């Protein structure tokens, strides 16, 4: 028997709509670029050469660093605990060469001879009060922001989906308890809650992710619950149940795929706001440990040097703004694509 051709799926329609939206595509490209920058931060900004030839042998110090970190390789004794820049300057002869990354500084490379330099050819975005290169710190800081956004939102989307699905599907007492919980959590000013919880925990990226994750689930839960309430009495769900599908199968196989679009949209906006929360926390000094480069912590550093040092304030702020805007643009595009009714307006 030949299978009937499947009608165009919901996600296909959404994707097609999304692809037409040029602004949204541009936003997506920027987000992807940021992820690439974060993933290859060590190849963009590092004090180690990417490739070098020394005494007729080719080395890849940046890669080697990863291998050494993983424990699968060891540094050659001549390169152990050595500053490659000094090494190149003192040991290299004519036949040797080294290719450094575009930004030749590590995020935590302190240099007391070049403190608080404004942007120049040597330090593209200037240096901070202990001579760390801001360009390098901004590049490496993207890792914190992007990972916090992604992980925190994943945590709360999972919690929210679970609670919202239960509440919407089963109704009755389950719904009552869940709805009360959602209402209570929505009443509590989230940022106060986060600050309060953070005060009790040692500063670390993981803690920030978890705290943002467990404090922001109610919006997702509320959305999911609403969608489930709408969907659960539709014919196809009733049909699935009549065919004897279990609750778990009905929820995950039949209802969830058709209700997840608004959650996905909310999650995209959520990533933007999680990035804002992380940078605000780091700015106030409650976020990542001060030694870790993050956009918020660079700004926090800048705050102590106010009113001088405009470059310390400007560039990390722009980075946050760019990232958050891109996520918001993508979210907006997704929302328009998922809900054509809104698009007309």
């Amino acid at each position: 028997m030949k299978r009937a051709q499947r009608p165009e799926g919901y996600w296909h329609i959404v994707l097609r709509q999304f692809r037409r939206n040029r602004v949204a595509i541009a936003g997506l490209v920027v987000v992807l670029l940021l992820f690439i920058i974060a993933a290859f931060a060590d190849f963009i900004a590092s004090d180690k050469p990417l490739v070098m030839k020394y005494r007729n042998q080719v080395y890849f110090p940046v890669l080697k660093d990863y291998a050494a970190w993983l424990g699968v390789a060891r540094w050659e004794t001549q390169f152990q605990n050595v500053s490659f820049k000094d090494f190149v300057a003192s040991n290299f002869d004519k036949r040797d060469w080294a290719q450094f990354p575009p930004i030749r500084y590590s995020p935590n490379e302190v240099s007391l001879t070049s403190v608080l330099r404004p942007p120049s050819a040597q330090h593209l975005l200037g240096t901070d009060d202990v001579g760390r290169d801001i360009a390098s710190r901004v590049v490496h800081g993207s890792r914190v922001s992007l990972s916090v956004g992604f992980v925190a939102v994943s945590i709360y989307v999972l919690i929210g989906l679970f609670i919202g699905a239960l509440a919407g599907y089963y109704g009755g007492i389950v719904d009552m308890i869940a709805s009360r919980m959602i209402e209570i959590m929505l009443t509590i000013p989230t940022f106060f809650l986060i600050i309060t919880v953070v005060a009790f925990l040692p500063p670390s990226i993981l803690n920030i992710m978890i705290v943002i994750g467990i404090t922001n689930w109610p919006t997702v839960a509320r959305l999911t619950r609403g969608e489930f309430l709408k969907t659960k009495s539709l014919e196809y769900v009733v049909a699935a149940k009549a065919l004897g599908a279990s609750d778990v199968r009905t929820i995950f196989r039949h209802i969830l795929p058709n209700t997840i679009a608004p959650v996905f949209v909310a999650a995209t906006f959520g990533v933007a706001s999680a990035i804002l929360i992380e940078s605000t926390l780091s700015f106030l000094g409650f976020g990542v440990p001060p030694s870790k480069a993050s956009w918020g912590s660079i700004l926090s550093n800048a705050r102590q040097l106010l009113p001088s040092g405009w470059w310390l304030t400007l560039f990390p702020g722009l980075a946050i703004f760019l990232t958050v805007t891109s996520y918001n643009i993508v979210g907006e595009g997704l929302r328009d694509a998922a809900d054509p009714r809104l698009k007309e307006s």
Partner: protein
Amino acid sequence: MRIYFVKRLLLMVPTLLGISLVSFLIIHLTPGDPALLKLGDSEQRSGNQLLAAQIIDETRALYGLDQPLYVQYLRWLKRILTFDFGESLRDHRPIIDKLKERIPVSVKLSGISLLFAYLISIPLGVHSATHPYSIGDRVTTIVLFGLYSLPNFWIATMAIVYLGGGDFWNVFPVYGLASPNAGSWPWWQRLEDELWHLILPVTCLTYYTFAVLSRYMRVGMIEIIRQDFIRTARAKGLGERTIVYRHALRNSLIPIVTLMADLLPALLGGSIVVETLFSIPGMGSLSYEAVNTRDYPLLMAIFTLSALLTLLGILLADFLYTLVDPRIGYEKSATA
């Protein structure tokens, strides 16, 4: 009307219990184990191990952490209901006295901010919606979108760098809400002085709320304008002005008013950054100090009270809701 509000007030009780439970759970995150201290945040911040140990002992005694759980919870509930939050670990003043000084400042700041946000966003949203895709609408949409993604601590820092007398201009005062010697001035001068001090913090606090509101206003208005009763009004031959302001505006205000419930918590949260940066003695800066000094009882009091304040704000929004929309009132079951 009265029945509705009695109902609404009664519904606040479970929410209140929930808030007390959440705060109670947070207290149990208190580092009660001295071993935890070695991992080390409190003792680094407060300078020495002895002081940290003292903090833990006092916190333990204050919350009765050696009692069974339900006893602890009932005690905590009693404290909340009687506004007895104990003493600050730092200067041993009763916490409630500290809060009494700080709350009015924050309420004033958020009140002014909310007022401005509504005053500007409603006409702006109406204009955008009645002239969709005009140049004005497009520019507003893009600007609002930008405002939406700007971190307020960045804007505040930039404002201080560029306008607060650093290397650039010196236009606005960036410290506190009054000049140091303002006490002896006549009232109009004091008022002018305070307004001058308020401009930057209120701007930093308002723009996000304002952006959210304007966007909702525009979408809401556009949706309303497309409905049948507006077409009917047009068909009747009513003037455009009457249609927009008497028929459309009233209906599109409803979602905007309910948004207040979402905006208030955000506003209170934003005050932490703004008050701290501009050294304004409100709840926000108090909570910043409380976190920095690990003043747990103070922190818990602020947390609980900010949730209570938000709850009151939501109640106020509900009240306004019934004013804007006469259809909502007695019968509506208040489950929303």
